[in-house]
């Protein structure tokens, strides 16, 4: 069964039709590349799944139940996690503090509860080990490489039982070696049965790691096919409009 299913989703801002009648479904443990030029509607689509915007028309279903989101916190409660393009990290805090930001572990009774540093360091360390990332929970994020910073942002999504992780341009602006690290992180998420939506401009990354590619142009879905049955040339054509549509 699909973990997330969108049916005839549209979003308009006044007269501007940002997303137009898009339907798609995402299976557990599947990596889906979401591609398209600037202004194609990728971000708007993702923001609806993340609870930032409400769709103007259409329905979203999660595990077969209708999903209505009023704010981002609710998306998280449903198991939808987002890795933002700028990673949303605080440089002055440790890796563990960033992983747990907004949902800190505490111990104690009733109103007298203090931060549980030991438990947060321990669990964050376990997650980094699962991700096979050399990231120390006690280090400040300020001192970390691009790949480690990605690991911290991705570790966040693994705190709760995430079902689907949306990643916004995770490989933009980092070095080649770090890109490989990030793609490995994505594979680890997939191996745990988590669905990953990878929003990216970088063709090689999508063809390297994704199972399926969805292409958007001017608010519409113009392609949705397996990676094996597509090619970078075809996707480029779809993004630019040289190829009208393949469905």
């Amino acid at each position: 069964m699909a973990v997330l299913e969108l049916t005839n989703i549209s979003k308009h801002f006044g007269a501007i039709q940002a997303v137009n009648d898009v339907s798609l479904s995402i299976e557990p443990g599947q990596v889906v590349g979401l591609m398209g030029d600037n202004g194609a509607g990728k971000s708007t689509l993702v923001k609806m799944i993340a609870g930032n915007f409400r769709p103007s028309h259409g329905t979203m279903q999660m595990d077969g139940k209708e999903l209505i989101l009023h704010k981002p916190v609710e998306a998280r409660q449903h198991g939808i996690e987002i890795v933002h393009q700028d990673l949303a990290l605080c440089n002055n805090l440790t890796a563990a503090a960033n992983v747990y930001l907004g949902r800190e572990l505490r111990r104690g009774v009733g109103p007298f509860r203090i931060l549980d540093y030991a438990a947060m360091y321990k669990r964050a360390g376990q997650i980094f080990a699962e991700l096979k990332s050399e990231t120390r929970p006690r280090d400040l994020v300020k001192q970390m490489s691009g790949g480690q910073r990605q690991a911290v942002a991705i570790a966040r999504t693994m705190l709760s039982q995430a079902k689907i992780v949306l990643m916004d341009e995770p490989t933009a602006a980092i070095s080649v070696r770090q890109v490989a690290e990030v793609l490995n992180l994505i594979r680890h998420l997939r191996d745990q049965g988590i669905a990953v939506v990878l929003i990216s401009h970088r063709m090689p990354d999508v063809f390297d790691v994704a199972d399926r590619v969805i292409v958007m142009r001017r608010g519409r879905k113009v392609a949705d096919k397996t990676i094996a049955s597509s090619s970078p040339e075809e996707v480029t054509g779809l993004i630019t409009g040289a190829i009208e549509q393949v469905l």
Partner: protein
Amino acid sequence: MAVTLDQTIAQKQHTLLSRIFASQTFWVVIAVILACMFLSFATDAFATQKNLYNITRNITFVAIIALGMTFVIITGGIDLSVGSVLCLCSMVLAVTMHAGYSIEVGIAVSIATALIIGAFNGILIAYLGFPPFVVTLGMLSIARSLAMVASNNTVVFQFGPDHDKLLALGGGAWVFGIANPVLYMILLALITGFILRWTKFGRHIFAIGGNEHAATLTGVPVRQIKVAVYMISALAAGIAGIIQTGWLGAVTTNLGTGMELQVIAATVIGGANLAGGVGTAFGAIVGAALIEVIRNSLGLLGINAFWQGVFIGGAILLAVLFDRIRNFRRND
């Protein structure tokens, strides 16, 4: 021998000692200790009980407000209104008690005044997006003006039926001959340190100062916390005002003039970063201590008081210089 991933992850890169040596606060403590040692040898008057009593007590008023300011500065904000809020809260206390109300009522009204002003600042900053500098600059003017209105710009030195209680509260020395204000300062510093290090609220304050956008995205209630920090800052100013009223035994409308700058200087010397994200309770106290020791020593060494500003200003620049040098080294 191969190092496993688990070993790398478990490794602590910084020992306690290396962290201490890397902190600006530590070096300011050293500076304070060295200055005190020097003054003990160089002058007869420094290491006397009376002088030490004076110094510790003088530190407190700036230090208590600096504790509140630390919260604001960690979030990346600034509160310029504290000197005026101190004056207004002192005056509200004085006028209320002068009118015949008990000390409890006076303190309650004074604290309430502080909290209302703090909430006003915070709401304008957090919900309406005003720059903190502008809002608190406006409040600097408003609060002092209100103090003048409340007292009709007179000196209040009679505090009604509980007059003696108020003077004992601020001027007494109930435990081991330590001035009461010092005890309040220590208590408040412990509370501040605890909040910053061990509570979710404290963690979120640092997060806002580090990356406000990230804090918002991860579900930190940024606006509520911002209102809270300005309320804490005003509350600290109010508490300092109450204590100072008891100590001085009189309130004038120029009380606390220019104090905001001393308070900000103390927090910055103590290691807080005006860009946000960094600061400690201990640093605020140490910064206030260094300023007071400089001031005291100039007097004892017979140096013209006009030089005070040069030395305090120099201390600010020197403290930040250390920080810059460390950053340069790290970037290399």
